[in-house]
């Protein structure tokens, strides 16, 4: 099928992962075509259209899993990626005013935890050490294409942890709900309940990440998350990649049992021996491939979808929110969840298609770290709420109104007067989880090479759900390209 029109590789989806894959392929001298369905590139990190003068990414609110190898090899700092904040503290906002601030400083953190429990404060350094050690032991498996599961004592601990829920794990370490509820938010990524096995492993996965050389750090780029997209576009284009946006792929063309190209909505076709999918695997398997292409087991598995989702609420504020206590760091991410049971109740309600009375959420005010994101004096508050129902009984439109009201009301309780300062509010359902398959432990513990491959030769997954836990990372894309080229060779 080669001809003058054909490419060496086609990448479907121009989000972070798609751009990374395209840049890597182009760097090796391949003729690459990247196709993005929307007009704007970037996916979750595409510039959102909030209000005039405000810069906020369409879906993601912080960066915590960007692959350091990608940053280095694609020379992203040279393409303009800088950080406004390299390590955001994690602050659990408490209704009693005794906020828990968890930062890289073990002693400050311990003294903040001591407000709730001296025993937990004493436990914290041991917990952090154990978490970080397990996380580093898992890096080969999670970071390299053929990495091995850790052996020895770390391996034993991970095996046990893989069967554990984050709720049970944190319960075994800490006694105070303040610390448990603050740490638990990160374990619910990918739709896990805090009662399910895999959620504790999610915490380890978070701790295995590294931003700017800091383990487990959460960062905000200067100029917002769209700055990452710009840097990646520059990297891909400089390497010679052809990028077309506003072009939706509707079918992956097969030649026997091999991927041979793609067909677009316009009917136009493009051919290449390698096809990389950076879109959700649910969409890929159920829409872009003809029914029956995959085996029965895979089709069956891809039909199951997570029953919980996450929502995002972004608001513009006329002035900086005054959070009463002065112990709070200005650049932090804040968790609103009083107890572990808050997560359990929200999850059980979400599985029943409803919202619980208290919704766990994480919010950031990126403008306190980078004033250029908003007009002078104004601010952005970006919140991620989960778990929320994926199939709301009342429909998403009605639910989102109720959700917005509940989010504002719970923020108002901690930041009195906040609701009067809201100029604009936007509620969305970022599709990071929407098109993904439900997370499961075997997926998290398999090798990266297995996660990126599909039953179809020449078709590779490189998007967020080829990561152990879906996230803006680029790691799966890097590994997918490496595996694809290794197979071809």
């Amino acid at each position, binding site marked *: 099928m080669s001809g003058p029109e054909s490419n060496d590789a086609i990448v479907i989806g121009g989000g972070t992962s798609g751009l990374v894959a395209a840049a890597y392929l182009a760097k090796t001298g391949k003729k690459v075509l990247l196709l993005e369905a929307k007009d704007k590139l970037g996916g979750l990190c595409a510039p959102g259209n909030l209000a005039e003068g405000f810069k906020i990414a369409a879906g993601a609110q912080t960066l915590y899993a960007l692959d350091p190898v990608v940053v280095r090899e694609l020379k992203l700092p040279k393409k303009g990626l800088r950080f406004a904040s390299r390590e955001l503290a994690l602050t659990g906002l408490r209704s009693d005013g005794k906020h828990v601030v968890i930062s890289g400083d073990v002693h400050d953190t311990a003294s903040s935890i001591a407000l709730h429990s001296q025993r937990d404060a004493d436990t914290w350094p041991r917990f952090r050490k154990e978490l970080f050690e397990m996380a580093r032991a898992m890096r080969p498996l999670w970071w390299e294409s053929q990495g091995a*599961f850790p*052996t020895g004592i770390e*391996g*034993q601990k*991970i*095996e*046990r942890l*893989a*069967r*554990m*829920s984050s709720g*049970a794990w944190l*319960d*075994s370490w800490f006694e105070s709900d303040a610390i448990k509820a603050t740490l638990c938010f990160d374990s619910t990524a990918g739709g*896990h*309940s805090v*009662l*399910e*096995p*895999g959620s504790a492993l999610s915490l380890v996965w978070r701790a295995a990440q590294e931003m700017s050389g800091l383990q487990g750090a959460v960062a905000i780029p200067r100029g917002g998350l769209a700055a990452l997209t710009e840097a990646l576009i520059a990297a891909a284009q400089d390497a010679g990649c052809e990028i077309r946006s506003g072009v939706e792929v509707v079918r992956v063309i097969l030649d026997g049992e091999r991927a041979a190209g793609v067909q677009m909505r316009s009917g136009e076709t493009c051919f290449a021996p390698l096809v990389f999918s950076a879109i959700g695997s649910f969409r890929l398997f159920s829409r872009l491939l003809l029914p029956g292409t995959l085996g029965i087991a895979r089709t*069956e598995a891809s039909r*199951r979808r997570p*029953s919980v989702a996450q929502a995002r609420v972004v608001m513009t504020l006329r002035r900086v929110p005054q959070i009463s206590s002065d112990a709070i760091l200005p650049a932090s991410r804040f968790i609103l969840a009083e107890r572990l*049971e808050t997560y*359990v*109740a929200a999850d*059980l*309600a979400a*599985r*029943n298609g409803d919202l619980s009375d208290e919704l766990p959420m994480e919010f950031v005010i990126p403008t306190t770290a980078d004033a250029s994101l908003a007009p002078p004096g104004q601010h952005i508050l970006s919140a991620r709420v989960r778990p929320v129902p994926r199939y709301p009984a009342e429909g998403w439109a009605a639910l989102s109104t109720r959700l917005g009201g509940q989010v504002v009301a719970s923020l108002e309780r901690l930041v009195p007067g906040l609701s009067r300062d809201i100029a604009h509010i936007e509620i969305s359902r970022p599709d990071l989880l929407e098109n993904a398959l439900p997370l*499961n*432990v*075997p997926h998290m*513990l398999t090798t990266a090479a297995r996660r990126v491959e599909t039953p179809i030769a020449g078709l590779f997954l490189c998007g967020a759900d080829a990561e152990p836990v879906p996230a803006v990372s680029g790691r799966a894309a890097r590994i997918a390209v490496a595996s694809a080229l290794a197979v071809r060779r």
Partner: protein
Amino acid sequence: MLLRYDAAIIGAGADGLAAAITLARSGLKVIVLERNEKPGGRCITREFHPGFHASPFCDEVPPIPAEIFWALDLARHGAVFIPSLVSTALWPDRARSIRSDQNREQEQAAAVTKAALARAGADAAFQKRSPFWRAHPLSDSWPGETWATQSLADVLVSDAGDDDALALAMARALEGRLAHPDLAGTALHLLALACSGQAVGGLQSLTESLLSVLQSAGSEILCGLEVTDILRRDGRTSGLRLADGTEIAARAVISTLDLKRTFLSLFAWNDLPAETSRRVASFRMNGSTARLLFALDGLPERPAFVDIDLFAGPIHIAPSTTGFGPAYAAWRGGTVAEHPPITLRFTSVRDPRLCPAGTATLTATVGAVPARLFNGAWTHEKRDALSEQVLDAIESVLPGTGARVRASELIVPPDIEQALGCTDGDLWGGEIAPDQMLALRPWLDSVAPRTSIDGLYLAGRSTAAGVLGTCVSGVFAAQAVMADLKAGHLK
């Protein structure tokens, strides 16, 4: 007076008696200690109303594996089980039945159970502590561990044709317990099925036959005295102290109490290694079962749309695939759900000697009943409200039952805790969850039945084998004691 034994066994339930028989038969000097006046644990049957008999805590237990059943010679001593041939889900307007011999999950669960028990048995009989952990995750693991990452719904949905069949399968798997069937790891509930069938004469008959075998094997049994302490010398178990101050010296101690009760009530808290106390404290036990025993004037009318012998097997009241989640949520919140899962057994249909002629006994097993209510203790009013609620539910599918009730007795989790000593009234020895099942039950670095304390062995429902079958964990603990004695590990 100091009494000296090779092994002392705490608890004269089925597991404890099976352990004693196994040890005594090999010529060891054994004593069984029971807190209650009568042996049997949950395997007892009593007269709850003049002339009416029922086993108060459960009607069926996890099956006794055939080889153990025959090795213990139970049939000769009068233990007879009648398996239920059919289970039915009954709604006000329809019914759905499944025959046990056409039940794929049950067959699959039985196969996995058999393999898992073989694995547990091999661990018990091994003389040294075996290298427990494998190099690779989720590959060379215990049979059934794939279920640790799957939800009950995942596993059942492929076999069940429609929603009613799925609801019935879930109700069977979760009887008397609770879980959200959509959460990963809940598939393990399939391994904890109590499906021995009903014992003729009630579960007491199993106890009687075990006692009769025990007598011929020549072991002592002492009832009515509680063990208060496990004695240790030089870090290893040396014996027991009883409530009246008597000390009993024993080379090995087998506890059939649950994990928490064994470690938290039989040792001074500062007597244990810190890591052990932390692990024990974080072991989750969930009381969730209530039981209602009814003396009836007769069987209710069989609904017109039912064409099978409904009353010969368990009847699950109006299960719904979406009902278990809310019931679980209510239980987490410390309340009884609006529609808790309820399973009925008209026990006298298969075993008419349980009540006078012309009458009937009915037991209701209610799941998702919290041990601690959010609004305080289980008062008389709350008990009455629960009885009322259950009776209403029965009436909704079997009209006329209420009018036939001559007497009833309610048993809630705190009653179970008081009678049997199960922490929080948890009849299953701990939550059925991936981090507390199979290789991880009760925890990872002791090859159950051995514990982290030399000379102390754990049997009963808190061990891997204890959930999978009856009598098995006792036999395994006994085998571990014999292996360790032979190898000279016990002084």
